Protein backbone atom coordinates (compact mmCIF):
# COMPACT_ATOMS: atom_id res chain seq x y z
CA UNK A 1 0.00 0.00 0.00
CA UNK A 2 2.80 2.41 0.92
CA UNK A 3 4.46 1.32 -2.32
CA UNK A 4 1.38 2.47 -4.23
CA UNK A 5 1.51 5.85 -2.49
CA UNK A 6 5.18 6.14 -3.40
CA UNK A 7 4.33 5.28 -7.02
CA UNK A 8 1.68 7.99 -7.14
CA UNK A 9 4.10 10.51 -5.60
CA UNK A 10 6.67 9.54 -8.19
CA UNK A 11 4.20 10.07 -11.03
CA UNK A 12 3.47 13.54 -9.64
CA UNK A 13 7.23 14.25 -9.66
CA UNK A 14 7.40 13.06 -13.29
CA UNK A 15 4.42 15.12 -14.41
CA UNK A 16 5.07 18.27 -12.35
CA UNK A 17 6.80 20.28 -15.13
CA UNK A 18 4.25 19.25 -17.76
CA UNK A 19 1.33 20.14 -15.52
CA UNK A 20 2.75 23.61 -14.90
CA UNK A 21 3.08 24.37 -18.62
CA UNK A 22 -0.59 25.13 -19.39
CA UNK A 23 -0.91 27.19 -16.18
CA UNK A 24 1.72 29.64 -17.37
CA UNK A 25 0.68 29.42 -21.02
CA UNK A 26 -2.78 30.81 -20.20
CA UNK A 27 -1.55 33.15 -17.46
CA UNK A 28 -1.97 36.88 -18.19
CA UNK A 29 1.48 37.97 -16.95
CA UNK A 30 4.94 38.19 -18.47
CA UNK A 31 6.49 36.72 -15.31
CA UNK A 32 6.65 32.96 -15.03
CA UNK A 33 5.82 32.62 -11.32
CA UNK A 34 2.96 32.27 -8.88
CA UNK A 35 0.50 33.78 -8.07
CA UNK A 36 -1.31 33.54 -11.41
CA UNK A 37 -2.83 36.70 -12.88
CA UNK A 38 -5.85 35.72 -14.91
CA UNK A 39 -6.70 33.96 -18.13
CA UNK A 40 -5.50 34.94 -21.60
CA UNK A 41 -5.00 33.58 -25.11
CA UNK A 42 -2.54 36.30 -26.07
CA UNK A 43 0.60 34.10 -25.89
CA UNK A 44 -0.94 31.74 -28.42
CA UNK A 45 -1.79 34.71 -30.63
CA UNK A 46 1.82 35.86 -30.32
CA UNK A 47 2.99 32.45 -31.57
CA UNK A 48 0.66 32.78 -34.54
CA UNK A 49 2.23 36.18 -35.35
CA UNK A 50 5.87 35.03 -35.27
CA UNK A 51 6.98 34.05 -38.80
CA UNK A 52 10.50 33.01 -37.66
CA UNK A 53 8.90 30.37 -35.45
CA UNK A 54 6.81 29.05 -38.35
CA UNK A 55 9.97 28.63 -40.43
CA UNK A 56 11.68 26.77 -37.60
CA UNK A 57 8.66 24.50 -37.11
CA UNK A 58 8.47 23.79 -40.84
CA UNK A 59 12.19 23.01 -40.91
CA UNK A 60 11.89 20.68 -37.88
CA UNK A 61 8.92 18.82 -39.33
CA UNK A 62 10.79 18.35 -42.63
CA UNK A 63 13.81 16.96 -40.72
CA UNK A 64 11.62 14.77 -38.50
CA UNK A 65 9.72 13.26 -41.46
CA UNK A 66 12.94 12.41 -43.32
CA UNK A 67 14.47 11.03 -40.12
CA UNK A 68 11.42 8.87 -39.41
CA UNK A 69 11.47 7.38 -42.93
CA UNK A 70 15.20 6.68 -43.11
CA UNK A 71 15.64 5.36 -39.56
CA UNK A 72 12.64 3.07 -39.96
CA UNK A 73 14.01 1.72 -43.26
CA UNK A 74 17.40 1.05 -41.63
CA UNK A 75 15.60 -0.37 -38.59
CA UNK A 76 13.61 -2.79 -40.79
CA UNK A 77 16.85 -4.08 -42.38
CA UNK A 78 18.58 -4.58 -39.03
CA UNK A 79 15.61 -6.05 -37.14
CA UNK A 80 14.80 -8.41 -40.01
CA UNK A 81 18.44 -9.55 -40.32
CA UNK A 82 18.70 -10.06 -36.56
CA UNK A 83 15.45 -12.05 -36.36
CA UNK A 84 15.80 -14.26 -39.42
CA UNK A 85 19.45 -14.86 -40.21
CA UNK A 86 22.67 -16.00 -38.59
CA UNK A 87 25.84 -14.35 -39.86
CA UNK A 88 29.41 -13.89 -38.62
CA UNK A 89 30.03 -11.13 -36.03
CA UNK A 90 26.27 -10.72 -35.59
CA UNK A 91 26.56 -9.53 -31.99
CA UNK A 92 29.32 -6.99 -32.75
CA UNK A 93 27.54 -5.63 -35.81
CA UNK A 94 24.23 -5.24 -33.98
CA UNK A 95 26.12 -3.82 -31.00
CA UNK A 96 27.71 -1.09 -33.11
CA UNK A 97 24.35 -0.13 -34.62
CA UNK A 98 22.82 0.13 -31.12
CA UNK A 99 25.70 2.18 -29.61
CA UNK A 100 24.05 5.62 -30.13
CA UNK A 101 21.47 4.56 -27.51
CA UNK A 102 24.07 4.95 -24.73
CA UNK A 103 26.57 7.34 -26.30
CA UNK A 104 26.40 10.89 -24.88
CA UNK A 105 24.67 12.97 -27.54
CA UNK A 106 27.32 15.68 -27.39
CA UNK A 107 29.87 13.13 -28.63
CA UNK A 108 27.69 12.35 -31.67
CA UNK A 109 27.28 16.10 -32.25
CA UNK A 110 30.94 17.13 -32.04
CA UNK A 111 32.30 14.12 -33.91
CA UNK A 112 29.99 14.75 -36.88
CA UNK A 113 30.76 18.47 -36.67
CA UNK A 114 34.48 17.73 -36.96
CA UNK A 115 33.98 15.44 -39.96
CA UNK A 116 31.57 17.69 -41.84
CA UNK A 117 33.10 21.10 -41.20
CA UNK A 118 36.79 20.48 -40.63
CA UNK A 119 37.58 17.38 -42.67
CA UNK A 120 35.07 17.46 -45.54
CA UNK A 121 34.63 21.24 -45.42
CA UNK A 122 30.94 21.02 -46.28
CA UNK A 123 28.36 23.57 -45.23
CA UNK A 124 26.12 22.65 -42.30
CA UNK A 125 22.57 22.20 -43.48
CA UNK A 126 19.27 20.50 -42.83
CA UNK A 127 20.86 17.31 -44.13
CA UNK A 128 23.61 17.20 -41.51
CA UNK A 129 20.91 17.26 -38.83
CA UNK A 130 18.94 14.55 -40.64
CA UNK A 131 22.09 12.39 -40.87
CA UNK A 132 22.71 12.60 -37.12
CA UNK A 133 19.05 12.12 -36.19
CA UNK A 134 18.80 8.98 -38.33
CA UNK A 135 21.86 7.66 -36.47
CA UNK A 136 20.32 8.15 -33.00
CA UNK A 137 16.77 7.12 -33.99
CA UNK A 138 17.72 3.85 -35.72
CA UNK A 139 18.37 1.99 -32.40
CA UNK A 140 14.90 3.01 -31.18
CA UNK A 141 13.36 1.81 -34.46
CA UNK A 142 15.21 -1.49 -34.12
CA UNK A 143 14.07 -1.92 -30.51
CA UNK A 144 10.44 -1.45 -31.59
CA UNK A 145 10.69 -3.51 -34.79
CA UNK A 146 12.57 -6.36 -33.08
CA UNK A 147 9.37 -7.12 -31.24
CA UNK A 148 7.42 -7.21 -34.47
CA UNK A 149 9.89 -9.34 -36.45
CA UNK A 150 10.88 -11.78 -33.72
CA UNK A 151 7.29 -12.55 -32.83
CA UNK A 152 6.30 -13.27 -36.42
CA UNK A 153 5.36 -16.82 -37.26
CA UNK A 154 7.84 -17.75 -40.03
CA UNK A 155 5.69 -20.64 -41.22
CA UNK A 156 3.36 -18.06 -42.80
CA UNK A 157 6.21 -16.89 -45.04
CA UNK A 158 7.20 -20.47 -45.86
CA UNK A 159 3.61 -21.26 -46.79
CA UNK A 160 3.50 -18.29 -49.18
CA UNK A 161 6.74 -19.38 -50.84
CA UNK A 162 5.48 -22.97 -51.15
CA UNK A 163 2.38 -21.62 -52.86
CA UNK A 164 4.57 -20.01 -55.51
CA UNK A 165 5.19 -16.44 -54.35
CA UNK A 166 8.65 -14.95 -54.97
CA UNK A 167 10.65 -13.83 -51.91
CA UNK A 168 9.83 -10.21 -52.73
CA UNK A 169 6.10 -10.73 -53.16
CA UNK A 170 6.09 -12.83 -49.99
CA UNK A 171 7.64 -9.92 -48.14
CA UNK A 172 5.15 -7.47 -49.61
CA UNK A 173 2.02 -9.60 -49.21
CA UNK A 174 2.71 -11.54 -46.00
CA UNK A 175 5.55 -10.09 -43.94
CA UNK A 176 4.85 -6.40 -44.40
CA UNK A 177 1.19 -6.49 -43.32
CA UNK A 178 2.17 -8.52 -40.23
CA UNK A 179 4.83 -6.04 -39.09
CA UNK A 180 3.00 -2.90 -40.28
CA UNK A 181 1.88 -1.83 -36.78
CA UNK A 182 5.53 -2.00 -35.65
CA UNK A 183 6.56 0.11 -38.64
CA UNK A 184 3.96 2.79 -37.90
CA UNK A 185 4.98 2.83 -34.25
CA UNK A 186 8.65 3.18 -35.26
CA UNK A 187 7.86 6.04 -37.66
CA UNK A 188 5.98 7.95 -34.96
CA UNK A 189 8.63 7.44 -32.26
CA UNK A 190 11.50 8.50 -34.58
CA UNK A 191 9.48 11.52 -35.63
CA UNK A 192 8.90 12.48 -31.99
CA UNK A 193 12.56 12.05 -31.02
CA UNK A 194 13.84 14.08 -33.98
CA UNK A 195 11.31 16.87 -33.49
CA UNK A 196 12.42 17.33 -29.87
CA UNK A 197 16.18 16.76 -30.24
CA UNK A 198 18.30 19.76 -29.29
CA UNK A 199 21.82 18.78 -28.17
CA UNK A 200 22.95 17.45 -31.55
CA UNK A 201 20.90 19.85 -33.67
CA UNK A 202 22.56 22.81 -31.93
CA UNK A 203 25.96 21.68 -33.27
CA UNK A 204 24.86 20.62 -36.73
CA UNK A 205 22.11 23.04 -37.72
CA UNK A 206 22.90 25.35 -40.62
CA UNK A 207 21.46 28.77 -41.40
CA UNK A 208 17.90 27.58 -40.74
CA UNK A 209 17.38 26.68 -37.07
CA UNK A 210 15.25 23.74 -35.99
CA UNK A 211 12.42 24.38 -33.56
CA UNK A 212 14.35 23.36 -30.38
CA UNK A 213 17.30 25.53 -31.47
CA UNK A 214 14.89 28.42 -31.98
CA UNK A 215 13.33 27.81 -28.53
CA UNK A 216 16.82 27.77 -26.99
CA UNK A 217 17.36 31.24 -28.42
CA UNK A 218 14.07 32.45 -26.93
CA UNK A 219 14.92 31.21 -23.43
CA UNK A 220 17.40 34.08 -23.06
CA UNK A 221 14.68 36.74 -23.40
CA UNK A 222 12.40 36.95 -20.33
CA UNK A 223 9.64 38.74 -22.28
CA UNK A 224 9.48 35.79 -24.73
CA UNK A 225 9.02 33.14 -22.02
CA UNK A 226 5.18 33.09 -21.84
CA UNK A 227 5.09 32.43 -25.58
CA UNK A 228 7.55 29.57 -25.05
CA UNK A 229 5.16 28.15 -22.44
CA UNK A 230 2.32 28.37 -24.96
CA UNK A 231 4.44 26.64 -27.58
CA UNK A 232 5.41 23.98 -25.03
CA UNK A 233 1.76 23.34 -24.22
CA UNK A 234 0.95 22.75 -27.89
CA UNK A 235 3.97 20.45 -28.26
CA UNK A 236 3.08 18.41 -25.17
CA UNK A 237 -0.50 17.90 -26.36
CA UNK A 238 0.66 16.93 -29.85
CA UNK A 239 3.34 14.52 -28.67
CA UNK A 240 0.99 12.83 -26.22
CA UNK A 241 -1.45 12.31 -29.12
CA UNK A 242 1.34 10.93 -31.34
CA UNK A 243 2.53 8.60 -28.56
CA UNK A 244 -0.98 7.33 -27.94
CA UNK A 245 -1.31 6.45 -31.61
CA UNK A 246 2.14 4.81 -31.55
CA UNK A 247 1.22 2.82 -28.46
CA UNK A 248 -2.06 1.73 -30.06
CA UNK A 249 -0.22 0.37 -33.11
CA UNK A 250 2.47 -1.28 -31.00
CA UNK A 251 -0.18 -3.16 -29.04
CA UNK A 252 -2.07 -4.07 -32.19
CA UNK A 253 1.16 -5.49 -33.60
CA UNK A 254 1.63 -7.63 -30.52
CA UNK A 255 -1.97 -8.78 -30.65
CA UNK A 256 -1.55 -9.66 -34.32
CA UNK A 257 1.45 -11.82 -33.39
CA UNK A 258 -0.77 -13.48 -30.79
CA UNK A 259 1.29 -12.24 -27.84
CA UNK A 260 0.61 -10.81 -24.43
CA UNK A 261 1.75 -7.25 -23.97
CA UNK A 262 4.83 -7.10 -21.78
CA UNK A 263 5.54 -3.40 -21.56
CA UNK A 264 6.64 -0.11 -23.03
CA UNK A 265 8.57 1.05 -26.02
CA UNK A 266 12.12 0.21 -25.04
Amino acid sequence: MSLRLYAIGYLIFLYLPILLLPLFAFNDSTIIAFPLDGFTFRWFVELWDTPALHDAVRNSIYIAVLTAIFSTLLGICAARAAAKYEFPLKRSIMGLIMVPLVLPEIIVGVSLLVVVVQLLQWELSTWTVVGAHVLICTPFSIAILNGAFQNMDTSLEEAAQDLGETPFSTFRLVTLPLVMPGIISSLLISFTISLDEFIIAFFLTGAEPTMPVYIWGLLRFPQKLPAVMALGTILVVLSILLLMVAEYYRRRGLARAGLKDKGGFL
Partner: protein
Amino acid sequence: MAGALFSGQTRSGLLLVSPPFLYAIALLAVPLGAIVLFSFWTQDYLTLVTTPTLDNYREAYIEPLYGLLLRRSLMISAAVTAATVVLAFPIAYFVSFHVRPERKSLWLFLITIPFWTSYLIRVFLWKVILGFNGVLNSGLSGLGLIDEPLTFILYNANAVVITLAHAFAPFAILPIFVALERIDRSLIEAGRDLGETKIMTFWRVTLPLAMPGVVAAVLIVFIPTIGDYVTPRLVGGPNGLMIANMIQTQFLKLNNAPMGAALAVIAMLSVSFIALLFVWANRRFLRVKQ
Protein backbone atom coordinates in the same frame (compact mmCIF):
# COMPACT_ATOMS: atom_id res chain seq x y z
CA MET B 1 34.28 -15.17 -53.70
CA ALA B 2 31.72 -14.39 -51.06
CA GLY B 3 29.56 -17.16 -52.46
CA ALA B 4 32.32 -19.68 -51.79
CA LEU B 5 32.81 -18.40 -48.26
CA PHE B 6 29.26 -18.06 -47.04
CA SER B 7 26.08 -20.04 -47.44
CA GLY B 8 23.01 -18.43 -49.00
CA GLN B 9 21.39 -17.71 -45.64
CA THR B 10 24.51 -16.05 -44.24
CA ARG B 11 24.88 -13.96 -47.36
CA SER B 12 21.26 -12.78 -47.19
CA GLY B 13 21.76 -11.84 -43.54
CA LEU B 14 24.91 -9.85 -44.22
CA LEU B 15 23.35 -8.17 -47.23
CA LEU B 16 20.33 -7.15 -45.21
CA VAL B 17 22.28 -5.84 -42.22
CA SER B 18 24.78 -3.95 -44.37
CA PRO B 19 22.78 -0.70 -44.89
CA PRO B 20 22.39 0.06 -41.15
CA PHE B 21 25.89 -1.30 -40.47
CA LEU B 22 27.57 0.83 -43.15
CA TYR B 23 25.55 3.82 -41.96
CA ALA B 24 26.84 3.30 -38.41
CA ILE B 25 30.41 2.94 -39.75
CA ALA B 26 30.17 6.13 -41.80
CA LEU B 27 28.34 8.35 -39.30
CA LEU B 28 29.51 6.87 -36.01
CA ALA B 29 32.75 4.85 -36.19
CA VAL B 30 34.55 7.14 -38.65
CA PRO B 31 33.57 10.37 -36.82
CA LEU B 32 34.62 8.87 -33.48
CA GLY B 33 37.98 8.01 -35.08
CA ALA B 34 38.17 11.58 -36.38
CA ILE B 35 37.62 12.98 -32.88
CA VAL B 36 40.48 10.88 -31.51
CA LEU B 37 42.71 11.94 -34.42
CA PHE B 38 41.75 15.59 -33.91
CA SER B 39 42.63 15.49 -30.24
CA PHE B 40 46.28 15.00 -31.24
CA TRP B 41 46.24 18.06 -33.51
CA THR B 42 46.35 21.71 -32.47
CA GLN B 43 44.64 24.91 -33.46
CA ASP B 44 46.78 27.96 -34.26
CA TYR B 45 44.18 30.73 -34.61
CA LEU B 46 42.55 29.95 -37.96
CA THR B 47 44.86 27.20 -39.14
CA LEU B 48 44.75 23.61 -38.04
CA VAL B 49 48.20 22.17 -37.25
CA THR B 50 48.17 18.50 -38.14
CA THR B 51 51.48 17.53 -36.54
CA PRO B 52 50.61 14.87 -33.94
CA THR B 53 51.22 16.13 -30.42
CA LEU B 54 50.07 15.49 -26.85
CA ASP B 55 49.78 19.25 -26.16
CA ASN B 56 46.00 19.19 -25.67
CA TYR B 57 46.20 16.35 -23.17
CA ARG B 58 49.06 18.11 -21.39
CA GLU B 59 47.01 21.30 -21.16
CA ALA B 60 43.98 19.36 -19.93
CA TYR B 61 46.20 17.89 -17.20
CA ILE B 62 47.90 21.17 -16.19
CA GLU B 63 44.98 23.63 -16.39
CA PRO B 64 43.06 23.21 -13.09
CA LEU B 65 39.70 24.29 -14.60
CA TYR B 66 39.48 21.22 -16.85
CA GLY B 67 40.25 18.86 -13.99
CA LEU B 68 37.71 20.62 -11.79
CA LEU B 69 34.98 20.40 -14.44
CA LEU B 70 35.71 16.76 -15.13
CA ARG B 71 35.68 15.76 -11.45
CA ARG B 72 32.49 17.74 -10.88
CA SER B 73 30.84 16.18 -13.94
CA LEU B 74 31.70 12.67 -12.79
CA MET B 75 30.41 13.46 -9.27
CA ILE B 76 27.18 14.93 -10.64
CA SER B 77 26.68 12.01 -13.04
CA ALA B 78 27.30 9.54 -10.21
CA ALA B 79 24.86 11.38 -7.93
CA VAL B 80 22.25 11.53 -10.72
CA THR B 81 22.72 7.82 -11.39
CA ALA B 82 22.41 6.89 -7.71
CA ALA B 83 19.34 9.09 -7.19
CA THR B 84 17.66 7.92 -10.40
CA VAL B 85 18.24 4.20 -9.85
CA VAL B 86 17.37 4.23 -6.13
CA LEU B 87 14.16 6.18 -6.79
CA ALA B 88 13.34 4.05 -9.84
CA PHE B 89 13.74 0.61 -8.27
CA PRO B 90 10.61 0.75 -6.07
CA ILE B 91 8.57 1.92 -9.06
CA ALA B 92 9.82 -0.91 -11.26
CA TYR B 93 9.19 -3.33 -8.36
CA PHE B 94 5.71 -1.93 -7.81
CA VAL B 95 4.72 -2.22 -11.48
CA SER B 96 6.20 -5.71 -11.83
CA PHE B 97 4.95 -7.25 -8.57
CA HIS B 98 1.90 -5.28 -7.49
CA VAL B 99 0.16 -4.05 -10.64
CA ARG B 100 -2.29 -6.38 -12.34
CA PRO B 101 -0.80 -7.79 -15.59
CA GLU B 102 -3.33 -6.13 -17.91
CA ARG B 103 -2.58 -2.70 -16.40
CA LYS B 104 1.21 -2.92 -16.53
CA SER B 105 1.56 -1.41 -19.98
CA LEU B 106 -0.65 1.51 -18.96
CA TRP B 107 1.69 2.26 -16.05
CA LEU B 108 4.76 2.01 -18.29
CA PHE B 109 3.09 4.27 -20.83
CA LEU B 110 2.35 6.84 -18.12
CA ILE B 111 5.96 6.69 -16.95
CA THR B 112 7.41 7.19 -20.44
CA ILE B 113 5.15 10.05 -21.63
CA PRO B 114 6.94 12.93 -19.86
CA PHE B 115 10.25 11.66 -21.23
CA TRP B 116 9.16 12.18 -24.84
CA THR B 117 7.90 15.71 -24.42
CA SER B 118 9.88 18.85 -25.09
CA TYR B 119 13.16 18.33 -23.32
CA LEU B 120 14.31 21.98 -23.35
CA ILE B 121 11.07 23.32 -21.91
CA ARG B 122 11.00 20.57 -19.27
CA VAL B 123 14.48 21.57 -18.07
CA PHE B 124 13.49 25.23 -18.12
CA LEU B 125 10.43 24.49 -15.99
CA TRP B 126 12.62 23.03 -13.26
CA LYS B 127 14.16 26.47 -13.05
CA VAL B 128 10.65 27.82 -12.48
CA ILE B 129 9.93 25.14 -9.87
CA LEU B 130 13.18 25.45 -7.94
CA GLY B 131 13.68 29.24 -8.19
CA PHE B 132 13.77 31.86 -5.42
CA ASN B 133 10.14 32.80 -6.09
CA GLY B 134 9.49 29.41 -7.59
CA VAL B 135 6.68 26.92 -7.24
CA LEU B 136 8.39 24.92 -4.51
CA ASN B 137 9.36 27.90 -2.36
CA SER B 138 6.01 29.68 -2.64
CA GLY B 139 4.27 26.38 -1.95
CA LEU B 140 6.33 25.62 1.15
CA SER B 141 6.06 29.14 2.55
CA GLY B 142 2.34 29.16 1.76
CA LEU B 143 2.01 26.05 3.92
CA GLY B 144 4.03 27.78 6.61
CA LEU B 145 6.79 25.19 6.48
CA ILE B 146 9.60 27.67 5.73
CA ASP B 147 10.11 31.34 6.58
CA GLU B 148 12.69 32.20 3.95
CA PRO B 149 12.95 30.77 0.43
CA LEU B 150 15.31 27.82 0.08
CA THR B 151 18.30 28.90 -2.00
CA PHE B 152 20.33 25.70 -2.05
CA ILE B 153 18.10 24.14 -4.71
CA LEU B 154 18.77 26.39 -7.73
CA TYR B 155 21.89 27.49 -9.60
CA ASN B 156 24.12 24.79 -8.17
CA ALA B 157 24.91 21.10 -8.53
CA ASN B 158 21.81 20.06 -6.52
CA ALA B 159 19.54 21.58 -9.14
CA VAL B 160 21.43 19.75 -11.90
CA VAL B 161 21.03 16.45 -10.05
CA ILE B 162 17.27 16.93 -9.48
CA THR B 163 16.63 17.97 -13.08
CA LEU B 164 18.69 15.18 -14.63
CA ALA B 165 17.20 12.57 -12.28
CA HIS B 166 13.82 13.66 -13.61
CA ALA B 167 14.93 13.55 -17.24
CA PHE B 168 16.44 10.06 -17.04
CA ALA B 169 13.78 8.38 -14.87
CA PRO B 170 12.27 6.11 -17.55
CA PHE B 171 15.74 5.04 -18.68
CA ALA B 172 16.28 3.59 -15.20
CA ILE B 173 12.80 2.17 -14.65
CA LEU B 174 12.45 0.16 -17.87
CA PRO B 175 15.58 -2.07 -17.64
CA ILE B 176 14.92 -2.84 -13.95
CA PHE B 177 11.28 -3.62 -14.76
CA VAL B 178 12.33 -6.02 -17.54
CA ALA B 179 14.75 -7.81 -15.20
CA LEU B 180 12.11 -8.11 -12.46
CA GLU B 181 9.56 -9.47 -14.95
CA ARG B 182 11.99 -12.28 -15.88
CA ILE B 183 12.27 -13.51 -12.29
CA ASP B 184 10.60 -16.87 -11.81
CA ARG B 185 8.08 -16.17 -9.04
CA SER B 186 8.40 -19.72 -7.70
CA LEU B 187 11.98 -18.93 -6.61
CA ILE B 188 10.66 -16.25 -4.29
CA GLU B 189 8.02 -18.60 -2.92
CA ALA B 190 10.73 -21.21 -2.38
CA GLY B 191 12.80 -18.68 -0.41
CA ARG B 192 9.79 -17.94 1.79
CA ASP B 193 8.91 -21.64 2.19
CA LEU B 194 12.44 -22.38 3.35
CA GLY B 195 11.98 -19.96 6.23
CA GLU B 196 13.54 -16.72 5.00
CA THR B 197 11.86 -13.49 6.04
CA LYS B 198 10.39 -11.23 3.37
CA ILE B 199 13.35 -8.87 3.60
CA MET B 200 15.95 -11.65 3.47
CA THR B 201 14.19 -13.19 0.47
CA PHE B 202 14.34 -9.85 -1.27
CA TRP B 203 18.02 -9.43 -0.38
CA ARG B 204 19.10 -12.98 -1.31
CA VAL B 205 16.75 -13.86 -4.19
CA THR B 206 14.99 -10.89 -5.80
CA LEU B 207 17.80 -8.33 -5.72
CA PRO B 208 20.57 -10.56 -7.13
CA LEU B 209 18.23 -11.72 -9.90
CA ALA B 210 17.26 -8.10 -10.66
CA MET B 211 20.91 -7.03 -10.74
CA PRO B 212 21.38 -7.25 -14.54
CA GLY B 213 18.57 -4.72 -14.89
CA VAL B 214 20.09 -2.46 -12.24
CA VAL B 215 23.47 -2.59 -13.99
CA ALA B 216 21.85 -1.76 -17.34
CA ALA B 217 19.99 1.12 -15.68
CA VAL B 218 23.18 2.48 -14.10
CA LEU B 219 25.07 2.40 -17.40
CA ILE B 220 22.23 3.87 -19.46
CA VAL B 221 21.92 6.78 -17.03
CA PHE B 222 25.55 7.36 -16.07
CA ILE B 223 27.10 7.43 -19.54
CA PRO B 224 24.75 9.88 -21.31
CA THR B 225 24.43 12.33 -18.38
CA ILE B 226 28.08 13.31 -18.72
CA GLY B 227 27.23 14.73 -22.17
CA ASP B 228 24.40 17.05 -21.14
CA TYR B 229 25.14 20.76 -21.39
CA VAL B 230 21.58 22.12 -21.40
CA THR B 231 20.70 21.29 -17.79
CA PRO B 232 23.93 22.71 -16.27
CA ARG B 233 23.56 25.84 -18.40
CA LEU B 234 19.93 26.47 -17.41
CA VAL B 235 19.81 25.46 -13.75
CA GLY B 236 23.44 24.88 -12.73
CA GLY B 237 24.67 28.44 -12.20
CA PRO B 238 28.43 29.07 -12.33
CA ASN B 239 29.23 26.28 -9.85
CA GLY B 240 27.10 23.71 -11.62
CA LEU B 241 28.72 23.81 -15.06
CA MET B 242 29.99 20.51 -16.41
CA ILE B 243 32.63 19.25 -18.82
CA ALA B 244 30.11 19.16 -21.69
CA ASN B 245 29.67 22.95 -21.36
CA MET B 246 33.44 23.32 -21.79
CA ILE B 247 33.47 20.98 -24.81
CA GLN B 248 30.65 23.00 -26.37
CA THR B 249 32.50 26.28 -25.66
CA GLN B 250 35.74 24.99 -27.18
CA PHE B 251 33.96 23.95 -30.37
CA LEU B 252 31.48 26.77 -30.89
CA LYS B 253 32.92 29.84 -29.12
CA LEU B 254 36.69 29.46 -28.79
CA ASN B 255 36.98 27.75 -32.17
CA ASN B 256 39.48 25.30 -30.71
CA ALA B 257 38.14 22.00 -32.04
CA PRO B 258 41.28 19.97 -31.17
CA MET B 259 41.11 20.99 -27.49
CA GLY B 260 37.37 20.23 -27.45
CA ALA B 261 38.10 16.86 -29.07
CA ALA B 262 40.73 16.07 -26.43
CA LEU B 263 38.28 16.94 -23.62
CA ALA B 264 35.60 14.80 -25.29
CA VAL B 265 38.02 11.85 -25.48
CA ILE B 266 39.06 12.32 -21.84
CA ALA B 267 35.43 12.51 -20.71
CA MET B 268 34.53 9.37 -22.68
CA LEU B 269 37.53 7.44 -21.34
CA SER B 270 36.79 8.45 -17.72
CA VAL B 271 33.15 7.45 -18.04
CA SER B 272 33.98 4.14 -19.71
CA PHE B 273 36.60 3.37 -17.06
CA ILE B 274 34.17 4.01 -14.21
CA ALA B 275 31.43 2.05 -15.98
CA LEU B 276 33.75 -0.95 -16.41
CA LEU B 277 34.85 -0.68 -12.78
CA PHE B 278 31.21 -0.73 -11.73
CA VAL B 279 30.40 -3.79 -13.86
CA TRP B 280 33.43 -5.58 -12.38
CA ALA B 281 32.52 -4.64 -8.80
CA ASN B 282 29.00 -5.87 -9.39
CA ARG B 283 30.27 -9.23 -10.62
CA ARG B 284 32.23 -9.57 -7.38
CA PHE B 285 29.13 -8.63 -5.38
CA LEU B 286 27.07 -11.34 -7.08
CA ARG B 287 29.81 -13.95 -6.65
CA VAL B 288 30.09 -13.24 -2.93
CA LYS B 289 26.36 -13.75 -2.57
CA GLN B 290 26.31 -17.17 -4.25
